[in-house]
């Protein structure tokens, strides 16, 4: 372990340190603002430290330089790019939590501690190159999430959501562990690179390995909420406080996708018919079931939950494609989805009062005439989820189709298109509700006054969303350069 390694892992180390500092700070000064400031400071310095880590990689001359830090962790430009995205998303969640938790009477400081720990888990997941670090990081993230989901204890929905996630997530972890054990029993290696070497040698067709990989996929599908392992997601999304939901939808999803890419891309699943079929079924089922269940939804948070199921299904389409464009499209779509869903849940959080979250569709009726900017932002987010141009969601979906068509996955591509058309219906229903005339809306809602912090965060996200929707070239270029090494 040299100083180079320490510098390379600086983002992780800073996040861990921040968690400790925040914990100690809470013990001495229970001040919300102070804790928020400390959390933000930690996240921002972690973000800045990515530059130093990147510097080390650049020094290694080759563009795809990698750094193996202990057998467990792996620092490369892919990990750094994802860390950057996760940190930015985490900062946004911190900003949203600030005004959300201020509105809720009660103890709010520990939420940031949990947030930091979950964030640390997510970031470690991105760096992991070994079953052990994979599992540890995933558990760190999940355990912190249980508490985050059930954080507002006065609300029975919160508790229910927390317990549901606890039980189902543990089951998923058990599947994952068992799958890892089977793979280890057959191949005798636990590092991702070792397994990839076996795959390259063509020894990945053993039945134990295949069953093991199947179980690992099951575990990951639970975390990503792919059909048929998705039944927890609407209840949890609805029950959890809006910032926690935003975290799950953006940071947690992003980290798991990063692991998915890191683990499965080198295995070349295109050449393994059982895995290909398995992923195709997951993709098709997620697209259809997610979209169909969302059609009649009257609750916005549940609707976004179902839409996330179908969006993960879309993402798998490009995941099954091969070549550099596959990873590029997955990564771009994921980033686009993270930006969009953060924006959507940011609006939900900003609208939520002290009693309950703004969830019913009725809460949103006629919003455009009371809060024109908030409604405009929310409709931009919805249009981006629907994949309409001028937004980043359009470019994301286009790249998915692009990657799918390049690998001639015509069935999946056509199904993606059909599902996009179905999806339009429920996104537009919300948009229509937003713009209903005041006389049409039955229940006038008292909208809490939202803070300047929220405004800044939402405005920044909106600008990024539109900017990347118009000029995605730079980000595509960056992603292409980075995923080439995976």
């Amino acid at each position, binding site marked *: 372990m040299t100083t180079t390694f320490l510098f390379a892992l600086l983002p992780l180390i800073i996040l861990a340190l921040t968690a400790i500092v925040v914990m100690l700070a809470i013990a001495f000064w229970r001040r919300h603002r102070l804790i928020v400031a400390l959390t933000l400071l930690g996240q921002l310095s972690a973000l800045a430290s990515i530059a130093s880590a990147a510097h080390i990689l650049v020094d290694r001359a080759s563009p795809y330089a990698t750094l193996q830090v202990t057998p467990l962790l792996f620092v490369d430009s892919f990990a750094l790019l994802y860390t950057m995205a996760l940190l930015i998303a985490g900062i946004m969640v911190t900003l949203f939590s600030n005004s959300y938790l201020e509105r809720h009477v009660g103890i709010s400081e520990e939420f940031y501690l949990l947030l930091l720990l979950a964030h640390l888990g997510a970031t470690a997941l991105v760096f992991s190159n070994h079953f052990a670090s994979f599992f540890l990081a995933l558990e760190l993230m999940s355990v912190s999430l249980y508490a985050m989901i059930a954080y507002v204890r006065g609300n029975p929905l919160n508790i229910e959501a927390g317990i549901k996630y606890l039980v189902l997530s543990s089951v998923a972890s058990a599947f994952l562990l068992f799958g890892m054990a089977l793979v280890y029993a057959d191949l005798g290696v636990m590092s991702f690179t070792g397994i990839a070497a076996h795959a390259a040698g063509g020894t990945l067709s053993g039945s134990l390995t295949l069953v093991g990989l199947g179980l690992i996929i099951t575990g990951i599908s639970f975390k990503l909420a792919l059909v048929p392992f998705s039944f927890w997601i609407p209840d949890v999304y609805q029950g959890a406080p809006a910032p926690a939901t935003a975290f799950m939808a953006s940071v947690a999803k992003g980290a798991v996708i990063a692991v998915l890419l890191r683990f499965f891309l080198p295995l070349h699943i295109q050449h393994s018919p059982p895995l290909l079929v398995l992923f195709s079924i997951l993709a098709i089922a997620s697209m259809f079931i997610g979209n169909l269940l969302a059609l009649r939804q009257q609750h916005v948070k549940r609707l976004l939950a179902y839409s996330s199921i179908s969006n993960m299904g879309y993402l798998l389409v490009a995941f099954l494609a091969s070549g550099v464009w596959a990873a590029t499209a997955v990564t771009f779509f994921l980033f686009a989805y993270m930006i969009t869903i953060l924006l959507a849940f940011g609006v939900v959080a900003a609208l939520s009062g002290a009693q309950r979250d703004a969830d019913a569709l009725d809460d949103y009726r006629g919003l455009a*005439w009371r809060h024109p900017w908030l409604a405009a932002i929310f409709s931009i987010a919805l*249009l981006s989820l629907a994949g*309409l*141009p*001028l937004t980043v969601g*359009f470019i994301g979906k*286009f*790249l998915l*189709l*692009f990657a799918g*068509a*390049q690998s*001639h996955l015509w069935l999946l*591509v*056509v199904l993606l*298109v*059909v599902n*996009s*058309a179905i999806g*339009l*219906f429920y996104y*537009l*229903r919300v*948009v*229509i509700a937003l*713009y*209903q005339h005041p006389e049409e809306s039955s229940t006038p809602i008292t909208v809490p006054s939202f803070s300047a912090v929220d405004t800044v965060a939402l405005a920044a996200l909106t600008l990024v969303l539109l900017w990347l929707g118009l*000029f*995605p*070239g730079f980000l*595509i*270029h960056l992603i*292409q350069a980075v995923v080439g090494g995976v």
Partner: protein
Amino acid sequence: MLVCLMLLPIIGGVLAWLLSRWNRAAAHWVALLAMLLQFALALGLWIHFRAAMRLSTHGPWLLECRYPWIPQAGISFHLALDGMSLLLLLLTSLLGVWSVLASWQRLQARMGFFYFNLLWALAGISGVLLAVDLFLFYFCWEVMLIPLFFLIDIWGNEKRHEAAMKFFIFTQAGGLFLLIGILGLYFINGRGSFDYSILLGTHMPLLTSGWLLLCFFLGFAVKLPVVPLHTWLPDAHTQAPVDGSVDLAGLVLKVAAYGMIRFMIPLFPAAATYFAPVAMTLAVIGIIYGALLAFAQTDLKRLVAYTSISHVGFVLLGIFAWNGLALQGVLLIVIASGISAGALFVLIGALHDRIGTRDLERMGGLWPRLPGHGGVWLFFTMATLGLPGLGGFIGEFLVLQGTFHVSPLFASLATIGFILSVVYALRMVLRIFFGPPSRQDSLPALSGREWAVMASAILLTLWLGLYPQPVLDTAAGAVRQTLLPAPSSYSCSYSNSNASSHRVLSRSKSRMKEQEKMMKEGRP
């Protein structure tokens, strides 16, 4: 220059929205000014290039501009102008001016956002007409939908939410198939570019090209609309505000025709010849079906919507006849019916303002109350039913003539549409203006602003009907260019399908020449 054409409505829209918070009148004027400037710019381009277009001394494009956009995927911001797009651009900006004028007084609430949507829809349409990068084309194609959705959903009539949703889902689903088609073409071409000139003349097996053609056709046919896919149109028309209807009728339907002529058939010439009988059957069904349903409507806007379905049948027929005569005719129909349908929708809006209904059953005997209105109405009804001397006639005549060379059967079937159109159009006028009077009170006559719109529409319709040669000249170069087979530099490997496509095209080319000769002799 070309970027300016697109930017004017975009900037105008944003300005109008921002200004409406301080000063309502300013928003009107900014919107009007933006559209007038666009119109003036297009007109200037037309005058500037008139000689060049007639002699067709230019290359494929009169004007071109190109910037890299997403170079990794071979996407560039590539705009180009030729006679065909110039004509439609003129129509777009003209109808833009009208729809701003038509909404001048009607609108009180949320006016800034209204103009924003209206102008952005027009910007999207301008983009569609100028784009020659297929990705950019698709981008603009989709962009124009969102503002139209808001126009219908926020400012529409009673059932606007359902209509807006139906409109959007239909057209978006069609659009996504178009996207699949574009992507398929891109990868089969394999040169890593979405540029029209590169994709043109891609060689592929007939079956593949058939599938891709079908994708393109679905995308355009929903918008046109071709008959089994038309059900969104009457609803959208009925529920849309007047200005939205003007744009829908005049422009949205027309850009689909433009897309077919510019992209679909040139990209897949071989498959198109095989597909032509199917498309022409659909076209004839559309002509007759639209006319019959128009006859049965009691809602005025629905009635006009069905007449546009009937007209669009002629457009489709002409496109798939694919010769110079028919294509010229298609462009004339597009322009003339854009003007006459637009004017009719403005009139319907004006009538609705005065008597508060669109229901034919509740009208009658209005001529003594609204003589000016009635006269103008009668004029545009005649234009719609294709009275010689007015705009629509020349176009329909050329299309029929062009079609007759390809298939006398379809041409003769389509003429039935002429008879039916007389029936529904006259019934409409009779019901509104003649018969037992429905009311005794006096109604306000057409205002100066309305007269300005109507007078320009009447003059244009007369001009198109009596002396369409300038328009035909403008389009001639572009049509000739479109009918040319793909550049030979790309046709290194010949398969059966290509050979047949070239045969077909060269046949149609020689036929075009003789038709052009005929056209010159036949017309003053």
